[in-house]
């Protein structure tokens, strides 16, 4: 024990070098754990976004893109699906329910989603959690809007407030639907999914604000007031995609095949769980590369520690000799130097972990707002703890080298040191 106190004091004596070594180890540990944390949390966050949906149907294209755009609202917009195709498939006897999704407009950078009441009843996230209203109710009127939790919180919206939707997806849009404001009638409870960043309106509402528009701009000299537009037939002509729940899962692959061979227009049906896994398979390579690189950075940081300890050993031959003279065993010298490296590794790993928590605490809200990613900051997962133990193991092994040298010195040149 006394040896370990001595080790700590000896490190304190060389505190600048020690601090730099700790910083190097801490940064590398932060990087290693950060990569791992982001990887697993991204996966969990994505997997928790949608549950209980058998198929997602959109226009033919890449399955991954359809999933990303329709559920996570990222990636490139997909082509649209004709309303008639949607109705045909929605009334198939094997289909239990559908939720139509229409994307394309935005409000202050938040996506506007046109859908119907099924969305609030059928949408499930995490382990089969339904959506809950924090305040208010579902949309009923043409110009009613339901906000996700993050939208309401960040823009400070209350029930009854009127909001203006913008055309397109930008945060700053010059094409506003300002003649037809929407009224906030409901605010959803937080889900930790992209739902939080979404403004929900009815499909008819989406149709209504575009009723007097052609080709992405208002028709000059032609204007329909909010009242006039109510008289129109507001059945949408197209939607972006729709979610499908089947009566029996047994039919799932057959329905998928039939939709993929749908004769009226080229459609694509995906199984969201399979497509997500396909995405992870693609990402796996990049993720592993990142993990290997961060592992190498850890090794580099321990090389730094080795350099520092080995250099200091030369300066400390006299110190070692004095220790020997006052009765220290060579094995105690070994423990002293090893104790120093373990202390450094332990301090580095702890600081690294704290640094990561701090960084996530700071960056968490940004990640959630920008990417819809919820990163749990605490506690570290078992795998992360295993990584930490591996880091400490590296420290121990690396520490053996200077410890062994010190041990050899203390035996070989003990008091015969010439100054």
């Amino acid at each position, binding site marked *: 024990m006394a040896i370990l106190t001595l080790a700590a004091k000896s490190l304190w004596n060389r505190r600048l070098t020690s601090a730099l070594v700790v910083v190097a180890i801490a940064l590398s540990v932060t990087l290693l754990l950060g990569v791992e944390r982001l990887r697993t949390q991204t996966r969990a966050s994505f997997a928790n976004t949608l549950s209980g949906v*058998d198929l997602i149907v959109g*226009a*033919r294209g890449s399955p991954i893109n359809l999933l990303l755009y329709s559920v996570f609202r990222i990636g490139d917009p997909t*082509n*649209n699906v*004709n309303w008639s195709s949607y109705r045909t498939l929605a009334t198939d006897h094997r289909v239990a329910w559908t939720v139509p999704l229409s994307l*394309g407009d935005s409000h202050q950078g938040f996506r506007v989603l046109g859908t119907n009441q099924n969305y609030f009843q059928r949408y499930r996230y995490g382990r089969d959690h339904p959506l809950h209203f924090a305040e208010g109710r579902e949309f009923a009127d043409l110009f009613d809007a339901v906000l996700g939790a993050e939208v309401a919180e960040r823009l400070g919206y209350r029930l009854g407030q009127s909001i203006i939707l913008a*055309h*397109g997806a930008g945060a700053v849009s010059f094409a506003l639907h300002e003649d037809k404001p929407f009224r906030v009638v409901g605010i959803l409870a937080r889900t930790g999914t992209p739902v939080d960043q979404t403004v929900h309106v009815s499909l008819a509402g989406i149709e209504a604000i*575009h009723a007097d*528009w*052609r*080709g*992405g701009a208002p028709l000059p000299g032609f204007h329909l007031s909010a009242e006039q537009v109510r008289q129109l037939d507001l059945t949408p*002509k*197209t939607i972006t995609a729709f979610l499908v729940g089947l009566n*029996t*899962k*047994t039919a*799932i*692959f057959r329905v998928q*095949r039939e939709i*993929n*061979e749908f*004769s009226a*227009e*080229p459609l694509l049906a995906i*199984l*969201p*769980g*399979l497509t997500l*896994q*396909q995405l992870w398979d693609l990402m796996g390579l990049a993720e592993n590369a990142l993990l290997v690189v961060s592992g190498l950075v850890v090794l580099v940081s321990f090389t730094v520690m080795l350099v520092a300890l080995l250099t200091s050993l030369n300066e400390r031959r006299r110190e070692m000799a004095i220790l020997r003279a006052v009765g220290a065993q060579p094995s105690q010298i070994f423990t002293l130097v090893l104790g120093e490296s373990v202390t450094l590794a332990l301090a580095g790993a702890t600081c690294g972990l704290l640094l990561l928590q701090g960084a996530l605490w700071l960056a968490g809200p940004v990640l959630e707002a920008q990417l819809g990613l919820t990163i749990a900051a605490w506690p570290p997962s078992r795998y992360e703890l295993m990584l930490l133990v591996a880091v400490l193991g590296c420290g121990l092994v690396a520490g053996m080298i200077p410890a062994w040298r010190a041990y050899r010195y203390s035996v070989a040149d003990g008091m015969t040191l010439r100054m």
Partner: protein
Amino acid sequence: MKTLLSLHIATALTVMSTVLFAAPPHVHGAGTLQLVLEGSRLNAELRLPAINVVGFEHAPSDTKQEEAVKKAVALLRDSRQVLTPSEKAQCTAAPGVVASALLLEHGQADHDHDDHDEAHDDDHADFDVRYGFDCRRPEALKQIKVRLFQPLPKLERLDVEMVTATGQARQRLVPGQAVITLP
């Protein structure tokens, strides 16, 4: 924007009407297996390129090839031999239902397969097999062993897609690693 898009779709539709029917992928060396477990019922659909089962993809033209097709059908019909679910699940199986262009009378096969592309002469053919299992204890069904790689050495991989009450998953089987783990 939306009308513009639908206009695009309309034109695209007329232009593409000949390629509307997407044929499922056909990759030599790679088979697919789709599994659905619902309640006590396990359904499986296996699709293998004929070239990896019998070594050719046309209707058998001599007795030797007819023999090969017969042997393949016998192999694929034997459900328990192809797919072995966990013992504890106590599954009983009906014989697999085998369908293939190779099993049709000569000429009929080409007709059946080529209806969307008349000019395509050397078309590919598959073996499609449907299996049904009834399991007394489906909750104990965690793994399914696939024993296709030994009798079909030219089969390099089997892409498995599965759907159960707990989720959807995919897995790639290769020789020596031929056990499906259900989600």
